[in-house]
């Protein structure tokens, strides 16, 4: 493993960063939905137009997966991530349509050192997924564990 670039100390509370770019193609929407979420509004353009969603759109689980990929490429693969116990909440606020271009806006909302494991800290991120019209299409909040650059030292925030 290479030395990580980002440790727990590198995510101060209140910091917001934007990153990522994902062009959502029709082919990919159909591929994901065929395997995992074969509902008409994710598979069939005509049925999708008649549905409450108004047009062919990505499975919400596909949106989560695309957000995960942008998070991996944006920081996770270069970070001392030790794992995540889960996700507190995801909201699918607007449909993700064919040819939407997504990006992420990540804010660190809370963090704390681990008392039992001085080499580890916990960080809570709120991550918003935006489309090319700057609409928030999805939000995600949850905790993750990161290795510390300076185990046991006092946090600055």
């Amino acid at each position: 493993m290479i030395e990580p670039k980002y440790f727990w100390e590198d995510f101060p509370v209140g910091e917001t960063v934007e990153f990522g770019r994902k062009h959502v193609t029709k082919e990919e929407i159909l591929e994901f939905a065929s395997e995992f979420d074969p509902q008409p509004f994710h598979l069939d353009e005509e049925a999708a137009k008649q549905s409450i969603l108004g047009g062919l759109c990505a499975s919400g689980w596909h949106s989560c997966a695309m957000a995960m990929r942008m998070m991996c490429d944006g920081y996770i693969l270069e970070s001392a991530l030790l794992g995540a116990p889960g996700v507190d909440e995801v909201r699918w606020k607007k449909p993700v349509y064919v040819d939407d271009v997504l990006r992420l806006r990540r804010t660190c909302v809370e963090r704390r050192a681990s008392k039992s494991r001085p080499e580890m800290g916990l960080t809570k991120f709120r991550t918003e997924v935006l489309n090319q019209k700057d609409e928030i299409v999805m939000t995600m909040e949850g905790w993750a564990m990161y290795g510390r650059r300076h185990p046991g030292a006092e946090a600055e925030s």
Partner: protein
Amino acid sequence: MPWFEDIEIGSRMELGSHTFTAEEIVAFAKKYDPQYFHTDPEAAKHGPFGTLTASGWHTTATWMKLMIASRQGREEPLDADGRKPPAGGPSPGFLDMKWPAPVRAGDTITYSSTVIEKIEMKSRPQWGIIRSRNNGVNQNGETVLSFIGQGLIQRRHPRGE
């Protein structure tokens, strides 16, 4: 799907099982979650779980796959006035997702869904929201997935009529 009015709190659906192969774990992770313990069986031996494990999003997407297959397997009867029962609607999101144990290559996960709450919608009188506690359990009885899912379901009679 049954109509919103006919769904009972506490009713439980068994959604069936899925065995995760190393090939599909790697294929999913290469597209969506390329952390080495999801994509590289050799490197994963030195990772946090000592073996290749599935992305939590893969475990969860497979819940959706079995939920849809399970719905398609049980056609509801026509309504008294001849209307077809509703198809599933979209979801506003989920809550309290946990991955308490890893899914390893070769694990067989058995999924279920239990209705826990019915929510009226002020903004959409023709729909209601069903909340369910959804679970995935491996062949050793360990829970690998738990979350509260939500889905919009059509009402037989719009609210207020």
